[in-house]
């Protein structure tokens, strides 16, 4: 399995992802944002961080970078893509995913462990989880408040394009367990073809047994074959 992690100058979770991919023996390359070609990849990851400082809108500037043209092409051709945190914001800004990520409703950076419930495992990314499984993951962002129009929201819900929602420890999806004001507690979404995933929580931070219960690992494991 060949993977590419796109590195923007302000990415800061690129190394974290690479550590996990290497542990799982992906053939991984780190791809600098100024590159104009992508190595052959089965999986592309847009990591978390502050791609270009994120001073305008998170991800807006990264969406205009050289390498993104290639990522967009690959995505349209069915390549698997995961955008985590800032990566999710970039996927939205470049149009590979629909909707918007607004400022957190509390207007503060939120960094903590949260729970998400697997809503559907009928996709490439979550097939190693059980439906309804509750995962403890970590979030760290300023703009993770997912918003979209009613029509798109209905489509997301009906076509099983929302793989994870914020929930409490027991798996109930309630507003108290929504850390950022996200519509319907949405923590991540898929595109129509289900080859592109954007999610705010960081699975790579829950992959090592020294500091987690490793609930982030199956996401990467499910992509291996």
């Amino acid at each position, binding site marked *: 399995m060949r993977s590419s992690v796109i590195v923007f100058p302000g990415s800061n979770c690129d190394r974290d992802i690479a*550590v996990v991919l290497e542990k799982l023996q992906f053939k991984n390359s780190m791809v600098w944002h100024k590159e104009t070609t992508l190595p052959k990849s089965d999986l592309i990851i847009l990591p978390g*961080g*502050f791609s270009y*400082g994120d*001073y305008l809108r998170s991800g807006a500037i990264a969406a205009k970078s050289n390498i993104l043209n290639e990522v967009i092409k690959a995505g349209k051709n069915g390549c698997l893509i995961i955008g985590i945190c800032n990566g999710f914001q970039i996927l939205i800004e470049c149009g590979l995913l629909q909707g918007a990520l607004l400022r957190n409703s509390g207007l503060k950076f939120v960094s903590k462990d949260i729970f998400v419930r697997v809503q559907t495992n009928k996709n490439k990314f979550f097939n190693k989880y059980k439906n309804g499984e509750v995962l403890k993951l970590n979030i760290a962002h300023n703009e993770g408040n997912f918003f979209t129009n009613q029509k798109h929201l209905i489509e997301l819900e009906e076509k099983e394009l929302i793989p994870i929602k914020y929930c409490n420890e027991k798996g109930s999806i309630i507003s108290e367990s929504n850390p950022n004001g996200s519509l319907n507690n949405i923590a991540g979404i898929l595109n129509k073809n289900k080859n592109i995933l954007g999610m705010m929580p960081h699975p790579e*931070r829950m992959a090592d047994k*020294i500091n987690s219960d490793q609930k982030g690992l199956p996401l990467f494991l499910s992509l291996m074959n």
Partner: protein
Amino acid sequence: MTIKNEQIEKHGLKLEEYKKIKELLGRDSNLLELGIFSAMWNEHCSYKSSKIHLKKLPTKNNIVIQGPGENAGVIDIGDDDAIVFKIESHNHPSFIEPYQGAATGVGGILRDVFTMGARPIALMNSIHFGSPENKKTQNLLNGVVSGIGGYGNSVGIPTVGGETKFNRTYNENILVNAMAVGHVNKNKIFYSKAKGINKPVVYVGSKTGRDGIHGATMASAEFDENSEEKKPTVQVGDPFTEKLLLEACLELMKKNSIISIQDMGAAGLTSSSIEMASKGNVGIELNLNKVPCRENNMTPYEMMLSESQERMLIILDDNKENEAKKIFDKWDLDFVVIGKTTDSKRLILNFDDKKVADIPITALADEAPQYNRKWTTSKNKKKELKLKSLKKIKIEEALLRILSSPDHSNKSWITNQFDQSVMCDTIQKSGGDAAVIRIHKKEKAISVSVDSSANYCNADAKIGGKQIICENWRNLISVGSKPLAITNCLNFGSPEKPEVMGEFVECIEGMKEACEFLNFPVVSGNVSFYNETNSKSIFPTPVIGGIGIFENLKKIINMKSKKVGNLIIIIGKTLGHMEQTTFMRDIYSINEGCPPEVNLVNEKNNGLAVSKLINDNLVSSCHDVSSGGIIVALAEMSMASMLGLKIVKPKKFKDLNEYFYAEDQGRYLLEIERNNLKKIEDILKKNNIFFEIIAEVQNDIFEVDKTFSIKTKELFDYSNKWFKNFNAVN
């Protein structure tokens, strides 16, 4: 041109100091030179009031690679690994512009660490605010916390701990101290000492603007015409550029091209170039027309004194410019050769083909004034407190009040704004006695804790100084690590006041005693004087940042009680010291008396015994007893896991509050398995350590036998109350 007395004073120099400048130059200085002297000779750069006292602190032992004097201290943690760390204050800027002040404080301390070749792996902070009732407090708290987070989160270094305190002494002078910790291969450490003649001096990073140029100095004649436009400004931080600078510097450091490197901190280009030259005993010549500027028409004076952030000065080896420039181009940063080293031992500045300054380096560095300022001993305010004469309060009532007080309440409102997990090596986040960070891809970890105790120091600076070193040491022991060394930030009032100077001198005396006894050297630090408003000084506030080591990841423990049926024992004697306790202050508003004395022999014995028990895998969880006494510490253990505790009523104390709220030093709470009790007893008895069984872990309920009982969940709700209310109300 001659310098007027008024200009000298506006530059913060004394007239006698200027007389000395004239002697050193053999002539009058010009305005630019005056500005340079004022920057180098001010308290911040020259340590002129503190140097002779700081020398008393122990700074060496077999693990210290670099003590004070460099950008940060460096200690050896085995296998070629070294830890680089330092703490620094950004108090005044944070009071004026809390977000940017705190943010740039974090930026500055990060540069101190990566300039030595280390990759930063953790950030900590100690923040002190005025009383919550003070109108400014909420805005300052919000601004400082989001500024610290805003910078660290963006650069991608986890902020893993710290402390937050409130006291009206900081109403008009908050404290914002930031600490950074980095990891480096001990054979690849970079220093600021210049070497060699005719080596290129390179400016890298952001462009220079008119940031942070001293208000006082701006008023000088040169700027009269358009002073409105050139108003002094607070620095604005750019964490994105910092990230680029960090990566670019570390990339360049992999090659063998850097002779020396120094970040531009306070007094920017002036102090960085002079420090490098002074340490290397060489001269330096700069062409100021080459300095990358953000604004048009910047003067040499502005360029030399600007405190623009995210800049570095590098001295490169011969023929390395192209290779180095390529790296900085890749990261879209400025890279300009602005001068060279010389054998003149002078600082020579050229601008528009004219020599605009020419000063012997020694005059700026070694010849800077040093003062042995007058000091008076801070009176030991001895006073016996009689609890009996005070209105009785129930234990549980006092406990709930303390847990819902600003200092003791749960700080997750703050820590949830800090990314604590990025880099994936954080093993223990804030909330415990010390944070724990793994060394990347290795089977070892370090612990970090930041502590202060302004109330104790205010009551008795010497005991307070000693106590805070011990508390820091204890926090590192409590997570299972071996304490190694500290950094310190000494926040005091004006050194020109004998009482303040007395606090400073005595505090150092106390710190020294403890550091020596515990073999806990000081490897870096910072002094922040003049923390006062309307000539009222803050409480003396030394902040200690300590580092400990785990040679084995299996020895890491925390304070979460683990298993119903386990016992909790207390190590160390409880005598009932009530003066200066949280209890007296929070419940009766009594601030008099001495702080608890520290017995260094007991402190060390108790600590080493706890370490041994943890190392022998006999301890399930551990927490030191500090502010708030035993009952608060027990409540914290209980809340950490949501398990309850059944606490034994002590036999020897008539007044239970005196037992539960006393702040005697050198005590620890250990959770142990019942069947290990015998083994533990043997070890402790053999080492002459006092201990007793104090509680048993149970479900849900926190209670003192036959006295009171409350749900742990309720304690937790109380401890979360304060921040929520404080933020909602205003």
